[in-house]
């Protein structure tokens, strides 16, 4: 057992295990104690009535009572949840698409490229819940009243649903753009890593620029689009444009409903988030027909995506 100093074979693996876990330990304990355990404990709490007593926290099993109050008795929770889901579904594609277009524009050899990037990244630094709240509260984010534009009225008479979507998009268009800061940088980074010779080869083979775009740029950028989509979904959930977060916080402070109800809220909310993320994953994951042809590569690509 004194062979640990050996640089090869079993000694090295053992040493790697010890050292790896030694450096990982703080995060690992934190993850298990403050994230994994709470994940299950919240689930348990959501079926209980939780009370603060002199002796500490007291829980009493009440079945699905909390879920019933959350979804059926509270008339505010379900609409807030629906609004949140709608916002995610409308905002996320818009943000990803806009940041991709801006990244393409910024990837050109244009002047003031660096300045534009500095501008587009600025919101990442100044954006906090309270700043956003104050700006929206004073109407500083509303650039135009879309409802008053003539074209909008035509769209409205044609399809009220489409009009509603456009209205939601443009109501806080600045705030929407403020979420593009990090995605733009990720996209530019991805675009710059594409090998130019691929385009040249395609051009020689007679591919039009449009074809090159769809056959080269899009497939290569797809994993980045997936990551930015996840990122955007998570970010939209964090900020106070998400009405559910503040409801959960109110429930935490509110002693009448108690933490059991808050846990039920949190679980329903997380379930909705999970469904949205899963849907985004299924939409953006690599297409089967492309990947099965190069079987070896597919596995490698998946690995790369996980570890990069």
């Amino acid at each position, binding site marked *: 057992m004194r062979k640990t100093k050996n*640089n090869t074979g079993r000694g090295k693996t053992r040493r*790697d295990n010890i*050292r790896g876990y*030694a*450096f990982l330990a*703080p*995060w*690992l*304990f934190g*993850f298990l*104690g*403050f*994230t994994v355990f*709470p994940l299950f*404990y919240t689930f348990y*709490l959501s079926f209980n009535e939780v009370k603060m007593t002199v002796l*500490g926290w007291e829980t009493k099993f009440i079945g699905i009572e909390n879920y019933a109050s959350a979804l059926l008795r509270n008339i505010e929770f379900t609409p807030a949840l629906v609004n949140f889901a709608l916002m995610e579904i409308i905002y996320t594609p818009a943000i990803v698409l806009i940041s991709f*277009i801006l990244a*393409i*524009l910024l990837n*050109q050899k*244009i002047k003031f490229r660096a300045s534009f990037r*500095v*501008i587009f*990244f600025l919101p*990442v*630094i100044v*954006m*906090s*819940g*309270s*700043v956003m709240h*104050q*700006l929206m509260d*004073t109407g*500083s*984010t509303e650039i135009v009243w879309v409802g008053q534009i003539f074209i909008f009225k035509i769209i409205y008479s044609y399809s009220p649903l489409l009009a509603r979507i456009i209205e939601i998009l443009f109501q806080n268009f*600045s705030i929407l*753009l403020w979420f593009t800061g990090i995605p733009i*940088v*990720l996209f530019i*980074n991805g675009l710059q*890593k594409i090998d130019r010779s691929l385009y040249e080869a395609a051009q020689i083979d007679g591919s*039009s*620029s*449009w074809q090159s*775009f769809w056959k080269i740029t899009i497939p290569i950028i797809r994993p980045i689009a997936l990551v930015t989509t996840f990122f955007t979904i*998570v970010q939209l*959930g964090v900020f106070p444009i998400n009405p559910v977060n503040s409801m959960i*916080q109110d429930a*935490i402070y509110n002693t009448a409903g108690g*933490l059991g109800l808050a*846990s039920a*809220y*949190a*679980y329903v*909310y997380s379930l909705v988030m999970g469904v949205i993320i899963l849907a985004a994953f299924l939409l953006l994951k690599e297409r089967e027909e492309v990947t099965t042809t190069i079987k070896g590569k597919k596995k490698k690509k998946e690995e790369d*995506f*996980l570890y*990069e």
Partner: protein
Amino acid sequence: MNKNGKNKIKQKFNKRLFLHRLRYKFIGYNVVDGIGSRIVSYIILIAISYIFFYPLLKMASMSLMSPNDIINPEVDWIPEKISFRNFMAAWYVLGMPKTLFNSIWYSGTLALFQTIVSATTGFAFARYQFKFKNFWFTMVLISFIIPLPIVIIPRIMLFTSLQSSTGIQLIGTIIPQLVLTMFGQGINSAILILIFYNFFRMIPKSLDEAAHIDGATAFQVFWHIIIKLSVPTIVTVFLFSFVWNWNETYVTGTFLRGAIKLLPMQLANFDNVFSDLASQIPGQGGDNRINEAYKMAATFISIIPLLITYAFAQKQFIEGIENTGIKD
């Protein structure tokens, strides 16, 4: 005549080539400079920049307005009389400069510990082949997606019961957040771990091996070689952590409950604090009603420290995100 015809063909050809080039330009394949597409790009970029800045410009303009300017529909951008009294009132209501110092040490402490734990975690993943490494790495990424509300309730219960059983004041101090941060569960930890992970992987392994042969322990390698080589990355991570902790109000609000007055929290409660203090605000004549100008002045004051940080460190911020390494 023959010559003329030839010219015509050449011209036609050039036009087609130009259109061709123009199309390439849009798709991000730069063969040559297409002037038309470039102008369109500039127009789009400038228009978008305007929309990016719009709320901040509006904020700056409103913060200088007098109550009359706010209600006057003719005043759109430039106030009739520039007044700084909004700033004086907002300064007082926000509790400056104490709030500012509070925010600086609070975010600074959290950022320091978050940087350390992100570095050790990133180092473990970048350097060692331990069991279940891939599983734990996936867990780091997944921890980013887990919504906060689902984990925060047991965290609150834990710290409140610890407080009542030990008698040590925990809620209303930095301790709960500090503990969470020290164990790698601070805000956006996954991104910071990724930045370190990707940087450490680029440092040649032969350096550690040489040190190991000379008898250095793993910790010595980490401290004397890796850390010394990654000062710029450490600065970047620290800055991100600082700004994110500064802007964080959800967890901070839950654990502090206003016991330590921080700038973003004061801004969030600005309306209430304003009405409480209205009669005491200096130089305002005692009859104050809150309006947009005060709010915008307060918002302005609260983001100035961040703007200054960004002005000096924008390069680090942008490169930091590039180094999260979602590249393949």
